[in-house]
């Protein structure tokens, strides 16, 4: 199996896209740490699903925006698995509002989780990977970080920030054989998009050339490729998984 003997940490893996990524990386043979911040039961279900198929996984609680909790999470992962080869920064939230109605706390919450969380986890992972002279960091951005979206200025700023951040550290870490790439999903069927009003969902659909929403597995397959040795010569890239929304 492609990821046999590798260990991976997937943030926000209790639900949605992160869940699909965690299960798929385990199918490819990796040992997986399933991070969550509040959905403990859901995280345990993901771990169980992996174990049922003969894989190895643990659930680790940490709010990615909190540096102390992130540090404790990495310690726990190292204690359990002894190493870390793959980090997938997937945890993310939305707090939508038009700019003139956007509260400071909505701005801060989204930037803290979606951008500072990526910094916290990447930093902790890089310290481990630099020593080992290899590693894969895969960050989940969004079509919104590339094209913008009315009502999501906080989310767009954070997701665009993830792209710039990833390109900067891709350059920093390239001499240590660490590849850093970004996956930018479009409209994927998860709790996050289920929360949108039907009118907006219909509007979105018109902008998707392939004429349908994406499935979490569509994202997971790309992450699996970027986590494997097949992508050793790819770094600093943004891969769009959006049914053709961005071309």
């Amino acid at each position, binding site marked *: 199996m492609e990821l046999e003997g590798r260990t991976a940490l997937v943030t926000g893996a209790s639900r949605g896209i992160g869940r699909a990524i965690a299960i798929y990386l385990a199918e490819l043979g990796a040992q997986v740490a399933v991070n969550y911040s509040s959905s403990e039961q859901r995280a345990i279900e993901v771990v169980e699903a992996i174990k049922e198929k003969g894989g190895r996984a643990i659930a680790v609680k940490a709010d990615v925006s909190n540096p102390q909790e992130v540090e404790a999470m990495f310690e726990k992962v190292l204690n359990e698995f002894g190493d870390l080869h793959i980090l997938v920064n997937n945890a993310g939230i939305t707090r939508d509002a038009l700019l003139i109605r956007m509260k400071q706390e909505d701005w801060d919450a989204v930037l803290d989780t979606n951008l500072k969380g990526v910094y916290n986890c990447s930093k902790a992972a890089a310290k481990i990977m*630099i*020593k080992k002279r290899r590693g894969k960091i895969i960050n989940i951005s969004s079509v919104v970080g590339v094209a913008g979206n009315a009502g999501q200025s906080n989310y767009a700023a954070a997701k665009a920030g993830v792209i710039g951040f990833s390109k900067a550290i891709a350059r*920093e870490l390239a*001499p*240590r054989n660490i590849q850093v790439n970004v996956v930018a999903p479009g409209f994927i069927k998860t709790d996050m998009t289920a929360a949108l009003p039907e009118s907006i969902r219909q509007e979105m659909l018109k902008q998707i050339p392939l004429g349908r929403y994406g499935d979490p597995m569509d994202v997971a397959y790309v992450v699996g490729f970027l986590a494997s040795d097949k992508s050793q010569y790819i770094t600093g890239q943004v891969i769009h998984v959006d049914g053709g929304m961005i071309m």
Partner: protein
Amino acid sequence: MIFEKVRDIIVEQLGVDPEEVTLDSKFIDDLGADSLDIVELIMALEEEFDMEIPDEDAEKISTVGDVVEYIKAHSKE
């Protein structure tokens, strides 16, 4: 004593032979370190000698002798 400890850390971080490390060795020119190596080295030294080396001081360090002098002057031990 300090030199030996520093040498061990350099050998470990840079993967060079112990004989190559003298007080006169320059990290970049003689020991083949790059900027990330230097940062890692500084962090390892901070941990080993339980001290903080501010960036403006770290920038002035270019030889192994500089490191040994710096630690003699600033270490709590």
